Each structure stands twice: as structure tokens, then as C-alpha cells.
């Protein structure tokens, strides 16, 4: 696939803004529309653009596969911390009478990890497609 110079130039301009927007949607998931899944999908589109800029950028797919698997375990651990702090599983690990800003930390952390997991998963799907017949 030969990509034109205009597409490469525009992709270079757009890339940081898309990454910023993806992280914004992921981190602000508990206040605004969006969340881990949507932000992760937008981050995956940013990586997709990087294929136009430098086609040989992503080489080590095994690292991404490992990262995705570890993220699953990390999500389970974060969601079950509350078993030790409050005695209940799958709920906020902070005490119930703490301030609202502090309590939203739980949702932010969980959204961030879900976003990383979704984006690595989607990147893996289309990078295996690209690498398949080189």
C-alpha cells in the first residue's frame, strides 16, 4: 500500500490531538459520556494513524499480547481490593464517608486500565491483519 505525502503530513498533525482526546475521554469517564471502552477505541485509532506515518513502527507484538493479558489481572486485583479494606468484593475500596472527589479515584483507575486493555486489544487485531501477509 503506497500512502500519499498529504495523508502522512495530516496524520502527523492529528496524532497528538487524538491521543489527548482518547486520554481525556478515558479519564473523565465518570463525569462525561464515554469511558474506558470508548477512550480505548479512540487510542487504537491513533495507533492506526501511526501506521500511515511509519509502517515499520510496531514490531514486537508479543509485548502487546503480554500487556493485554496482564491488564486483565490488574483489573481484577483493583476491583477486589475492597475485600480487604471494606469486607465486600467488587465495590469502591475507599470508606463510604470520604469525600466524593476521593471516591471517584476508584472509577478513574478502573477506566484507565480498561482503556489500556481495549486499545491494546484493538491494536492487536489490526496489526495481526497487517503483519499476516508481509
Amino acid at each position, binding site marked *: 500500500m503506497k500512502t500519499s505525502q498529504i495523508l502522512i503530513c495530516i496524520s502527523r498533525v492529528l496524532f497528538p490531538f487524538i491521543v489527548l482526546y482518547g486520554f481525556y475521554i478515558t479519564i473523565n469517564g465518570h463525569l462525561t*459520556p464515554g469511558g474506558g471502552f470508548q477512550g480505548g477505541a*479512540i487510542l487504537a485509532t491513533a495507533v492506526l494513524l501511526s501506521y500511515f506515518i511509519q509502517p515499520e513502527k510496531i514490531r514486537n507484538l508479543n509485548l502487546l499480547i503480554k500487556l493485554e493479558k496482564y491488564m486483565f489481572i490488574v483489573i481484577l486485583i483493583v476491583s477486589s481490593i475492597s475485600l480487604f479494606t471494606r469486607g465486600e468484593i467488587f465495590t469502591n475500596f475507599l470508606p463510604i464517608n470520604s469525600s466524593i472527589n476521593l471516591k471517584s479515584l476508584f472509577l478513574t483507575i478502573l477506566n484507565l486500565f480498561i482503556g489500556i486493555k481495549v486499545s491494546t486489544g484493538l491494536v492487536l*487485531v489490526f496489526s495481526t491483519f497487517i503483519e499476516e*501477509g508481509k
Partner: protein
Amino acid sequence: MIIIYMLQILLIFLSIYIISSKNNLKAIIFFSIFSLVTASLYYFLKAPDLALAEVAIGSAITPLIYIIAISKQREFLVVSHISKRDSFLLNTKDTVGKGYKLLDDFTKHYNLKLVINHGKYDELKGIFRSRNIDLVIEKSKKNGRYILKGKKTSILMNKLAQLTITDDDIEVITIEEGEIYD
């Protein structure tokens, strides 16, 4: 309210166009527009969460996967085991090898893209399975003829055998599915 009705009518026309279009690439681009319209419809129906997911996945990632699949479909992969200095597959400004001319005409006739790979069969593996190779070229040590090996099930191999039946230098061998090439 009028905007919602207009977008819905636009969706119907777009989907009819996608189904009836003969060109694959055009259909994919209109599929991407289709999901963009769907996303704006979600937004007007007060589901911005879904709209965000639809924009990212429906109009960027899915069309890219389709485009890659289409560009892979139109390749004719040839693996050559003969040395690079051999004039059979040479393609420079001054000399065009006999085999290269044959394969080039053959693939142009069927509207495919010719990809010639020098090297070993083992290096050409995809991530999950070995790559589907269309043709393997070897040089026989006994009489110096060039041997073209391909799958028996492929219709293209029959055509290639008919093309080269008058040629003394070239021999076409077809192999059953599942056998090893070497």
C-alpha cells in the same frame, strides 16, 4: 426532529448503495460514511456513549480491516529457490527474464499483483499460520529445467500449465493440498 428523519432516509439510501455497488473499495468507503451517519443519529437520540464508540470502531477500524483484506486478496505470491543472478526471474532496465515476463503477463491478465520473494519457505510465516504460497520456482539439477510447483486445486495452475506446454525449459507440477513443497 426533521434532522432525525432526514438522517434515517439518508441511511436507507446509503445501505442500498453499499449493497448494489460493484466496486469493493467504494463499498467500504460508503460503509464508513454509513457508520458516521449512524453515530450522529445516536447523538440526536441522546446516546452519546454509543456515538463515541461507533465513530471510533465503525468508521475507522472496521473499514481498515476490510481494506487490508482486499489488498491481500489480489496478490500472487511466488517463492523462488533459484539464485538471484539467474536471468530467469531478472527484472532490470536492460534485461527482462523469460520467467518474469511470463508471470507478469499471466498476473496482469487475471488482474493480480505479482509478489516475488527470494528466500526460504520457512521465513514466510504469518503470525498464526503459515502463509498461503501460490507458486514455488526451482531449478532442476539433472537437466537444468525450471520447475514451477503449485497447488492442484488452484484453477490458475491449470491455465499456467496450458500456457507453458510448448516451452521446453519450463515444467509445471501440481501438488495435492497438505503436502510439503520441498
